[in-house]
């Protein structure tokens, strides 16, 4: 309990003093996860829509695999990516290991199946409603996907935010490929792990609280920006 209250105090201290380090690693956390979610959305949302409107032979298998990939163990993703990016690996020449880029790649891999799968689930229901109409209007496959993505944007927001939540709190993969290097690849989660290993629990908890607040704040901000709550109908 002492550690907890000390942690709350530490969190307030960090926030009110706008601690330089805290601001830096928070911004890096956001930059990495925002980049990952942007890439994952760019690929995952259209893919989810495509899955919803397309019937092909291995559709069920594809969906099953996609759902399974939602639970990819971050440590394993980090490990594989580490091997690929390390000097002796196939992409070693790119010199990406221990850079924010490597962290973005890792998180994109983790988030993409989540965004795609949740998008598919949401749009599948919408497609069920729209199916006859969009065929009747003689839409092309691209137009169908477009209509689903546009009209389903509310539920897609949930998919994106879920992916964001997974990314911002993730540590297993980015620790391995990022290396938690001060001023270069240290983010909130890896900083917390470091403080814990040093036995500095109050600071670790303080950082944890900042992390949670940040996640909540982002969610609220996006909901307000998209006016989901006010317009009511989903």
């Amino acid at each position, binding site marked *: 309990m002492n550690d907890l209250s000390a942690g709350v105090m530490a969190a307030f201290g960090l926030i009110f003093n706008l601690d330089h380090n805290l601001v830096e690693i928070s911004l890096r956390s956001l930059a990495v996860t925002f980049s990952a979610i942007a890439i994952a959305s760019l690929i995952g949302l259209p893919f989810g829509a495509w899955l919803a409107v397309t019937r092909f032979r291995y559709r069920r298998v594809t969906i099953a695999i996609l759902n399974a990939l939602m639970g990819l163990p971050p440590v394993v993703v980090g490990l594989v990516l580490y091997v690929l990016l390390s000097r002796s690996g196939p992409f070693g020449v790119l010199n990406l290991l221990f850079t924010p880029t490597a962290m973005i790649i890792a998180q994109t891999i983790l988030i993409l199946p989540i965004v795609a799968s949740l998008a598919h689930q949401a749009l599948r229901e919408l497609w069920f409603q*729209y199916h006859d109409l969009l*065929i009747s*209007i*003689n839409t092309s496959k691209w137009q169908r996907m477009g209509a689903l993505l*546009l*009209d389903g944007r509310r539920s897609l927001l949930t998919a994106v935010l879920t992916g964001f939540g997974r990314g911002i709190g993730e540590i297993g993969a980015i620790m391995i490929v990022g290396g938690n290097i001060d001023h270069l690849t240290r983010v909130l989660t890896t900083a917390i792990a470091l403080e814990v290993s040093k036995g500095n629990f109050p600071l670790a908890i303080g950082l944890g609280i900042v992390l949670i607040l940040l996640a909540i704040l982002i969610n609220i901000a996006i909901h307000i920006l998209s006016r989901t709550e006010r*317009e009511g*109908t989903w």
Partner: protein
Amino acid sequence: MVTSILPLKLEEATVRKGGSRILGPLDLTLDGEGCTILLGPNGAGKTTLLRLLHGLDRTSGGQARWATPREEAYLRQSFVFQSPVVMRRSVRDNIAYPLLVRGVGRKEARERAVEWIAHVGLAGADDKPAQILSGGEKQKLAIARALIIKPEVLFLDEPAANLDGTSTRDIEALILRAARAGTRIVMATHNFGQARRLADDILFIYRGRIHERGPAKEFFAGPETKEAETFIKGDLLL
């Protein structure tokens, strides 16, 4: 003058669903002008026939052929569903959508949608989300959305089922106007008054087959088959 997509010809066409034949085999040629009304008891196959004609259901046997290639024919026809489907967007954007699909610019499409909003009596609903409309209002939206492309053939599946008297009259006027402008109308209804007001000829559907076909006047004056007679009488008895 562009070549007509009509006649539409069905030859030995059948539709199977869930393992059994629910329509056909039937031969039918749809040509000329005017308004054909499909009558028949519940479950007779009216919706199935309309969907087959429109290309929403495929033939399981036989064939359905338009006078032009499919892709062209599909661009020049509309369908109004038995239960209206609305998209999660504003009334205006719902009605404008078929134009957008056909490559009309957003601005022009919206302007024409606004005109149609007035035609169908939805004035003032332009920016409302379509999902909050009442059942009858949704039906009107669906009709505006169907007519906005000036279709050569218009299929309607009980379009007035949810409408009150005044709205029914409004919709019928729209349908008649479209018919006079040269749109070929094919419509299913359970409303005999409506059938009498609109029909040039009647297709009486019974157990998945075209049981009787003829000019509306003759059909109502004295149908040829016993089943059709019973069907009309049934209505009078109610």
